[in-house]
């Protein structure tokens, strides 16, 4: 048997005759049983081993070919290329060689006040943004968890900003917060002094951060609603028996059990705010490039200006390397600080 299995001619002939005869149903059934026994599993295993192994590797190879080219060519290589460029003098306008200059670009960046400002601003956007969206997200989720009617309607309303274009929203906010816009009109009507908002170096950053938070509340709400739904009611009942106040229940039951959701949404929030801080700053700041007086500029906006307005790819790449380390550091920090083990 094994690989060299050949069906005996005797069975073939007998099978042929039997097939022709098909005299009695009973006999047929018995014959089928015998046939199965004789054939056993040899040809099956043989086929599986030979064709299947070949087919499996063929499948894996064909399927991974394009993804491999994509990840290496469009993700990994460009990343390495950016690191390389960051250590070179590389201006698109200047022809000729691109000499290796060591840490010069990094030194120049840390002496550039605008860059330091952009780094600080990005940090503020992330801190205010993540804190704000967590706070409002949890609050809305807790409120929605309490009510029975119109739950679906509220959920849809709070979620709408998340699916709308950030560019469009930025212009709407700019329109609302203009010097003679709606918000100032309301302030004047109720007897308060009008505010410069986006025109003031002190306030513009916070207006932009508010727009970011406003847009992400819905997303956070959905995450936290799901997290709340996963907390067993039993724990609250146990807390009730122990005579815990609502505040104690929130801090000792809800928050610890929401911990995974909090970590997840803080990290997702950080990554989105770094991206959004470009779109929103370009479309909301008074001069369209991080003004007034660079008070709203973020690192991504700075990179964009260095690369596509100054054509200084070396400096821009060095700035992206710093941004990368910055994100890496913040992620590790968030995981360490926010992830705690609780015993129940």
């Amino acid at each position: 048997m094994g690989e060299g299995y050949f069906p005996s001619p005797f069975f073939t002939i007998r099978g042929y005759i039997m097939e022709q005869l098909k005299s009695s149903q009973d006999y047929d059934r018995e014959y089928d049983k015998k046939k199965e026994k004789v054939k056993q599993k040899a040809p099956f295993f043989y086929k599986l081993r030979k064709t299947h192994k070949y087919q499996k590797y063929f499948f894996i190879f064909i399927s991974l070919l394009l993804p491999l080219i994509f990840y290496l060519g469009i993700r990994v290589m460009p990343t390495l290329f950016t690191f390389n460029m960051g250590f070179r003098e590389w201006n698109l306008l200047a022809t000729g060689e691109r000499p290796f200059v060591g840490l010069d670009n990094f030194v120049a960046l840390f002496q550039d006040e605008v860059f330091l400002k952009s780094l600080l601003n990005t940090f503020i956007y992330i801190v205010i943004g993540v804190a704000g969206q967590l706070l409002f997200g949890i609050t809305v989720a807790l409120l929605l968890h309490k009510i029975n009617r119109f739950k679906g309607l509220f959920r849809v309303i709070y979620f709408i900003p998340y699916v709308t274009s950030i560019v469009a929203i930025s212009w709407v906010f700019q329109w609302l917060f203009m010097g003679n816009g709606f918000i100032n009109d309301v302030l004047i009507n109720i007897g308060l002094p009008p505010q410069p908002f986006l025109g003031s170096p002190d306030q513009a950053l916070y207006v932009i951060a508010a727009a970011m938070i406003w847009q992400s509340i819905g997303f956070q709400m959905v995450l936290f609603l799901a997290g709340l739904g996963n907390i067993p009611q039993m724990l609250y009942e146990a807390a009730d028996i122990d005579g815990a106040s609502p505040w104690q229940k929130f801090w000792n039951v809800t928050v610890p059990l929401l911990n995974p959701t909090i970590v997840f949404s803080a990290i997702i929030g950080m990554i989105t705010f770094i991206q959004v801080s470009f779109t929103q700053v370009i479309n909301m700041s008074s001069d369209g490039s991080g003004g007034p007086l660079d008070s709203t500029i973020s690192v991504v906006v700075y990179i964009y200006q260095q690369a596509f307005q100054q054509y200084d790819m070396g400096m821009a790449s060095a700035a992206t390397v710093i941004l990368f380390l910055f994100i890496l550091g913040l992620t590790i920090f968030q995981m360490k600080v926010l992830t705690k083990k609780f015993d129940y």
Partner: protein
Amino acid sequence: MKPGKLLPYIALIIGAVVMLFPFIWMLSTSLKAPMDIFNLNIIPESATLANYIEVLQESMFIRWFLNSVIIAVITTVSVIFFDTLVGYIIAKFTFFGRKFLFIVILSTLMVPVEMLIIPWYMMSSELGWTNTYWGILFPGLMTGFGVFLMKQFMEQIPEDLLNAARIDGMNEFSIFFKIAVPQVWPAISALGIFSFLSNWNAFLWPLIVTESSSLRTLPVGLSYFSSGEAESQWHLIMTGATISVIPLILVFILLQRHIIKGIVLTGMK
């Protein structure tokens, strides 16, 4: 109703007004005549569609809209296909370099897209990809996030199910399409929604890689329109904003159940 029960409703209604007001004000401004826009009336005294006619005739909003649809649809189909396939292979096969491949893909998650725009731009201008559809969409064709997500879901498919199909003589391609894929439909639709939304809203890369107005996507077009052609003409800017916001809101309201479920599903992984 007890006052204690009413309180959450009041808070939620105030919040809902804050969430909806910018849209209402946007719509309201877009329906006003230019001299009325600084009035505080929410319902315009004499509503007019003149702004819409002007915006649609004078600028290329319809073209930008189509560009956005084309790019978001192509990238979403590609992301769904490749991420699901790669996730399946990493989850269900053992082969040389599997772990390494997975680590490479995961590590791309750590690198922000902003870091790659400079090499992408230089690559695109070298290869003549700037100012083409391909140039806009190539960075989004596959995502590390999607591979990771699909791997998590594919791991839950019982091995016996796949082996049973193999014993029945199904080839690997049909096993993937007919056995594995139907098991993870909810995750696939969630991935599709995320991919569509992020490509629809993408701003930085399309801004860099497009030059001619006719290739712009909706966000890039709207941004140029608002700071250029329509500068300070807020009735026109708000009309453009409404045109770019309303279709997606309508789609969302239609599909909201699936979208919210999808977010919950991915958030729990």
